[in-house]
């Protein structure tokens, strides 16, 4: 189905609930509905298999409009239908939950509740997901009137429940600090002997208040801020933001720049998947594979450094183009590096499909079938390993993906082994695409002029990160700063599947199951500055500098 027919279909399905339709962009449909119609409207879309819930954007429309807005974004192919619900601007306006229809909505609803102060009626878990335990009640960071002075810590009223041990049943806490987690997150697995009977999670340990911070920085500064959403897929975030802002500004980016962005995105995928392979192997207790894959990952890191000057935050994207060109010399080193990497990736593909002891830990573990993957709203390689054909690069090509398409890799089996196979094969496809682009580099400029102020408007930018679809909602008020940037990273959508699939598995499989979706905690967590009661305070830059100088002087004296 084309995007037009999809949108036509959505219009028909939502007609009974619509209080007004708009089409802000050719691939989008905005439908105003009443809060009470939300479950019915969602059900109309879902039961006719129109799309999946991609994100919920909480937004404060400001004192002038005196309204709050919750936007439910559904995606199918390139088409995006947004259900827009305006709510009165009061403490805890009510909105019905849709978690019973779409499990992943539970996370978004928790965010909606704590960030915008909306009372989501009937949501299965209304405890805090991102905000710290000592955050005061009734203070909502995404409200316009919020100021950091309001966030004075209070005595936490929700302490972690102490699970006593009854017979063989007890709770194993994993995290926030645990050797299996490379980043902080908190999980509680109730186990009976070695078998998992229940799972809960809590995020927000690396929450940095980025969505809020974007509102105080100009369009260009935000590029560098958002690059730091994630240390692994930094390029994904700058690209997603840049494509969105470029759409809003109606700037045509030269094809050469787009091609270079796609090369970097491909290399980033290689580095990310190799990193994941190592972590997953380590979780399984196969440290040799861990060491080898990380050694080989150095090749692509060095290559990225050669191309962009940086190993982690590449900073090659600027609004309207890229910073660095890819020279003939660079092309040569790309080919050389890929020769080596392709050989190694084939070797790893062979290992993960033939090594007997490794297969004991992956084959048939955490199997998620196609229907479950759809129901849980899985994204990226996790979804594709269950046979779900879902890839933004193909469904809704952006940048240079029109000219240099990638082919999709899927697997029907849905277990951990399938996820290894999908990721490794995806790397081979990526390497092939990178070579194609390098050999057929389009000529042209690297950048175009870019305005400082962006015309008012809203846009949605979706980019396929190594872990799945990254979703950006960007709203401009016509000024130098954005009014709202909403970021939804793929890991958040994949959690539902892990927590549900963990039940019934052995405790020993849990690290593997968590690793299987390639979680990225810092991507999930974004929003808040925290002021602790006793041990910290908010410092300005000059205060921090002074503090640092004093501290190191004192340390020198001690020596």
């Amino acid at each position, binding site marked *: 189905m084309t995007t037009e027919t999809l949108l036509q279909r959505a219009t028909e399905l939502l007609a009974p609930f619509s209080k007004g339709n708009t089409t802000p962009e050719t691939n989008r449909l905005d439908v105003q509905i009443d809060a009470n119609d939300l479950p019915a409207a969602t059900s109309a879309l879902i039961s006719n298999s129109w799309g999946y819930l991609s994100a919920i954007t909480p937004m404060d429309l400001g004192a002038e409009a005196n309204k709050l807005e919750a936007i439910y974004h559904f995606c199918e192919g390139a088409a995006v239908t947004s259900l827009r619900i305006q709510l009165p601007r009061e403490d805890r306006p009510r909105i019905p939950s849709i978690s019973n229809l779409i499990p992943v909505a539970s996370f978004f609803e928790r965010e909606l509740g704590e960030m915008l102060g909306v009372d989501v009626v009937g949501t299965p878990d209304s405890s805090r997901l991102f905000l710290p335990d000592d955050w005061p009640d009734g203070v909502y960071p995404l409200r316009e009137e919020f100021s950091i002075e309001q966030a004075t810590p209070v005595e936490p009223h929700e302490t972690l429940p102490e699970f006593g041990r009854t017979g063989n049943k007890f709770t194993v806490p994993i995290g926030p600090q645990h050797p299996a987690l490379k980043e902080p997150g908190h999980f509680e697995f109730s186990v009976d002997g070695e078998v998992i009977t229940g799972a809960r999670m809590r995020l927000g340990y690396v929450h940095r208040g980025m969505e809020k911070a974007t509102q105080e920085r100009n369009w260009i500064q935000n590029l560098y801020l958002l690059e730091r959403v994630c240390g692994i897929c930094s390029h994904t975030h700058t690209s997603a933001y840049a494509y969105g802002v470029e759409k809003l500004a109606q700037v045509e980016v030269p094809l050469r720049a787009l091609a270079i962005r796609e090369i970097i995105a491909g290399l980033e995928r290689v580095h990310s998947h190799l990193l994941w392979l190592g972590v997953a192997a380590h979780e399984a207790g*196969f440290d040799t594979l861990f060491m*080898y894959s990380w050694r080989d990952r150095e090749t692509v890191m060095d290559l990225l450094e050669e191309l962009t000057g940086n190993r982690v935050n590449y900073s090659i994207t600027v609004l309207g183009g890229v910073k660095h060109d890819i020279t003939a010399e660079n092309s040569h080193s790309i080919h050389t590096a890929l020769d080596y990497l392709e050989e190694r990736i084939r070797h790893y593909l062979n290992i993960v499909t033939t090594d007997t002891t*490794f297969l004991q*830990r992956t084959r048939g573990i955490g199997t998620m079938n196609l229907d479950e993957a759809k129901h849980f709203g899985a994204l990226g390689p996790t979804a594709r390993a269950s046979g779900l054909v879902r890839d933004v690069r193909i469904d809704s090509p952006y940048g240079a993906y029109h000219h240099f398409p990638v082919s999709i890799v899927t697997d029907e089996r849905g277990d951990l082994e399938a996820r290894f196979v999908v990721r490794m094969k995806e790397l081979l496809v990526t390497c092939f695409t990178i070579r194609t682009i390098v050999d057929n580099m389009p000529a042209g400029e690297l950048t175009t002029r870019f305005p400082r102020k962006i015309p008012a408007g809203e846009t949605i930018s979706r980019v396929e990160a190594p872990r799945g679809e990254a979703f950006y909602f960007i709203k401009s008020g016509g000024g130098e700063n954005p009014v709202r940037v909403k970021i939804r990273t793929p890991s958040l959508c994949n959690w539902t599947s892990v927590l549900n699939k963990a039940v019934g598995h052995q405790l020993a499989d849990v690290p593997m199951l968590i690793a299987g979706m390639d979680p990225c905690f810092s991507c999930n967590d974004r929003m808040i500055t925290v002021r602790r009661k006793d041990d910290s305070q908010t410092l300005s830059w000059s205060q921090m500098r002074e503090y640092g100088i004093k501290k190191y002087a004192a340390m020198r004296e001690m020596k």
Partner: protein
Amino acid sequence: MNILTSLLSLMFFPAGISLILSGMLYEWADRKLVARFQNRIGPRWFQPLADTIKLLSKEEITPHGINNFLFYGLPIVALSGALTAALYTPVLGLTPIYSFQGDLIVSLYLLSLLTMCTGLAGWNSTSRFSLVGATRSLTQLFAYEAPFLLALLGPAMAAGSWMIKDVSTYASNHWMFITQPVGFIVALIGLMGKLELPPFDAPEAETEIVAGALTEYSGRGLALFHIGKSVELVVAISLVTAFYLGGIGNPLIFILKTLAILLFLATLQSMLTRLRIDQTVGMWWRFGALLALLQILVIILLKGWLI
């Protein structure tokens, strides 16, 4: 033998200091080999010693809600068990200084003392990781102990004695890894289970249960457990070498043989993925125990035939 020599042999040689030091060297060799297999540089030769000294000098944190007597006593019992076992074992290819009929069984149980203590230490702690680790340690003990014992009984039956000294002497003239290859393999793999080396490291799988039963241990207690483990490595390897690879003999050649076993263990460690505890138990009882029994059966039949 008077008390003074007994004391000396217990404190310095073959047990005591020299055994602890050689344990550390073996541990270093193991770590270095695994590191090289994994394309890493690996530790310097004195690293295990440095680790131990550092641990010994660190503060020992006593957790709440435990039995203090057990908490401090268990590491000492574990280490002394392993050290005592050395007195009956041909460490470095030398004739064991003590022997009595049945010392083979006693030594094997002394070696198991370490695992028992680890399990108890985990049980004594209130940490859930320790608890899961302890359960796994003891479960695994039940899995490999019987096959390992059977694998060492094979040579003993062939030699017709329950004394390690007699078996080793008999083994000097009979290379039993040729005559009893199945038992040899089972003994080697049992060794890995006993030492909780990968792929049998589920009891201390860091990605699941942090450090397993020893999660709450720090400082001296942890150091003693570590030393106990390196001592056990030497004693157990010496035992298998003496039984299967040509018995008591030239210490230099004996050390080379033990190193060959260590190389084999290191290779397996770096090649295999950690087994889940249910897989470990399943593997031992489905294959390990049966193979060892088969070996014993063959020996019994052959002996009956020859006599």
